[in-house]
């Protein structure tokens, strides 16, 4: 984890929305309409829950790879009103990384693990409205 000016540096991480983002822009509670940038707050706890679950599943399924869980004010997550996360698997600029990423066996294992994590989350939170 960390900054690298090298465009080919490989990394894998899970990101959820930063919890207090946009709070200073809203002066009062009880809005009739939810500001677009606070959409993430409707499922904030669930996003964190699926983030942890995804981290567990991926760490178990892909030994030797680390999937640290971070929070950041991500543009793509700001207005989502359902549990959401960003999963960074690797870097296509990294020659070693790209060999693994294009391997069909790895891709299948990864896709199955992600699908299983989503399913497990869905079963765990059945009945709840997030």
């Amino acid at each position, binding site marked *: 984890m960390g900054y690298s000016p090298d465009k080919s540096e490989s*990394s894998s991480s899970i990101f959820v929305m930063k919890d207090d983002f946009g709070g200073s822009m809203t002066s009062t509670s009880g809005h009739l309409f939810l500001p677009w940038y606070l959409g993430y707050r409707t499922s904030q706890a669930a996003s964190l829950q699926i983030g942890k679950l995804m981290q567990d599943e991926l760490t178990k399924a892909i030994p030797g790879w680390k999937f640290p869980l971070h929070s950041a004010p991500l543009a793509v997550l700001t207005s989502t009103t359902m549990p959401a996360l960003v999963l960074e698997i690797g870097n296509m600029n990294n020659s070693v990384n790209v060999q693994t990423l294009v391997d069909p066996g790895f891709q299948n294992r990864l896709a199955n693990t992600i699908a299983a994590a989503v399913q497990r989350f869905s079963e765990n939170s059945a009945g709840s409205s997030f």
Partner: protein
Amino acid sequence: MPRHIKIALIVLAIGFAVSLGFFVDIVGRVRSMVVNEKDTAENPFTAPKTPLYKPTDPPMPVKIFFPAADGSILLSTEDSTIFKSAEVVNRAKQILEKVERGPTLGTLVPALPKDAKVDDIFVSEKGTAFIDFNSSIATNHPGGVLNEQATIYSIVNSLTYNIPEIQEVKMLISGSEKETLAGHILLLLPLQMDLSITNVTPDHQPEAKKVAQNK
């Protein structure tokens, strides 16, 4: 000649005249822009750079945030000194010059990509600092969520941690608002200090900052 053809010809003539007028106007504007650029390039006299502090301004210790080289934490700090000028903008400029220059410690790495420079700074009465960067901050950025987060929060934290008058930072690129720096972190809203990604605990904030926050 039938009446409807006459009307059609008149309408066409009016349309042609209006289009010609627009065309002439646009050509004139383009020519004047070219002339102005030439004047600027050939003008040997540039406005002198205003000093960022007076000789009487006292020194002020600051912490500049840079990405940590070992990756154990995203941002770490380097102690430095600026001069406590009365103008908030001048203090902010001094801090951003240090961020631009990069760290002196080997355990830290530069926060800004190659050729990235601050073009302008404005601080509003509400405590929002608007920082306009040149396009290199985006075009030369290596990308990746963590890299983007490190670049942005090196700037945000360095300003908000050291200058009590600055509560949040809004980044602009080449004078305009951009959704993200390199595709990930949202720049449409001002960003506030985030010490959770640093080795600094909130308790260790400067006294002036705590007083400003409690107001």
